[in-house]
């Protein structure tokens, strides 16, 4: 690899390190087991590296990163290796069994994850971008859905999540 190639690689590695929490969030939302998350993380980094020479800086780096990460998560991995049985899914918020967060906020976050888990793949992407405080402009740039449609979908998802957590609180499955 020549000097410019090495420089580009170093810059890329630095950017991935800086934004790794975004990638992990995508992995958490779309994968059930730690092994699947590792696989998805690896795949996303490979796809990012392949597309990096085409990144012209026309959009924010994080927007570009989200686009590739979500594309990879939603359309690239056809099969998840380890998926818990439906019985387990009702008992425990499976993606986060290993996480122990004390406090009310953390508990709410765990509830949120359990609810997100029941959403479709597109809805998961929307919720994630919303929680990341991305503007509707940016969401449109990432997902390719027009803003009016995004707002309608977002309202519907909010309602859906509200109902899900209400049902969980009253023990309705």
């Amino acid at each position, binding site marked *: 690899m020549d000097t410019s190639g090495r420089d580009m690689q170093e810059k890329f590695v630095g950017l991935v390190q800086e934004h790794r929490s975004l990638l992990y969030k995508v992995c958490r939302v779309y994968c059930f087991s730690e092994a699947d998350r590792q696989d998805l993380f690896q795949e996303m980094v490979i796809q990012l590296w392949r597309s990096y020479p085409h990144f012209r800086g026309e959009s924010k780096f994080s927007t570009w990163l989200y686009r590739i990460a979500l594309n*990879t998560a939603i359309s690239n991995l056809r099969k998840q290796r380890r998926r818990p049985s439906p019985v387990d899914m009702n008992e425990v918020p499976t993606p986060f069994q290993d996480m122990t967060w004390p406090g009310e906020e953390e508990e709410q976050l765990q509830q949120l994850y359990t609810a997100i888990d029941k959403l*479709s793949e597109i809805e998961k992407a929307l919720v994630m971008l919303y929680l990341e405080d991305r503007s509707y402009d940016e969401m449109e740039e990432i997902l390719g859905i027009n803003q009016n449609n995004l707002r309608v979908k977002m309202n519907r998802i909010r309602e859906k999540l*509200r109902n899900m957590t209400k049902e969980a609180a009253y023990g309705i499955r």
Partner: protein
Amino acid sequence: MELDSLKYAWRTLESRSAPDKSPEQIRALLHQRSKGPVEKMRRNLTGELLLILVTYTPAILFYFLDFDGKLSGIAWLFILLLAFLAVYFYRKNRILKAMQCTGCTLRSSLQQQVDTLKRYTRFYVRAGTIMIPIMTILSWLIIRWKFQPAPGADLFYRISGSPWWQHPLTWLILLIPITIGVYFLNVWYVGRLYGQHIRKLQDLLREMEEE
């Protein structure tokens, strides 16, 4: 639960829980092989190409060198078939290359995947079906051309006529149901391989488009 009230928790707690990755670990990932389905399909295609080259080359050499070169026509048939397969692999590879657009918006990327995957399966079915009559007709021509009756048997052939299995009409009648059967077999196989994935992508697109 209100989503807005969870924004802060999501952004802070989640960022804290992300495992650390050293630059070396990230650098190592760059040299790993992709496990994506398109990459796997491209690797399988290369494997198929190698397998064909490995099996056809000795056969071509055999028919060129043995029998004092009298059966070189069969070697040329194999070369013709290889040329046909080269076009087949080239087309397939081009379609697979066009399938990925990770830098596009999610919607365009899904649309592109659906379109190219459909093109890919159509090509798979057509090429797989047309190969059967081409191969059969070429084999028949070779048999007719290279395996003439022995000089002593001419009289027998003149008296009895050519055997039924040598008649072009017999071949044609057999070829039609076989080709139709192979077509449906290909349709079923392609559906089994990619049908579910295409339907899943179409469902995602539909969900994105509906208001």
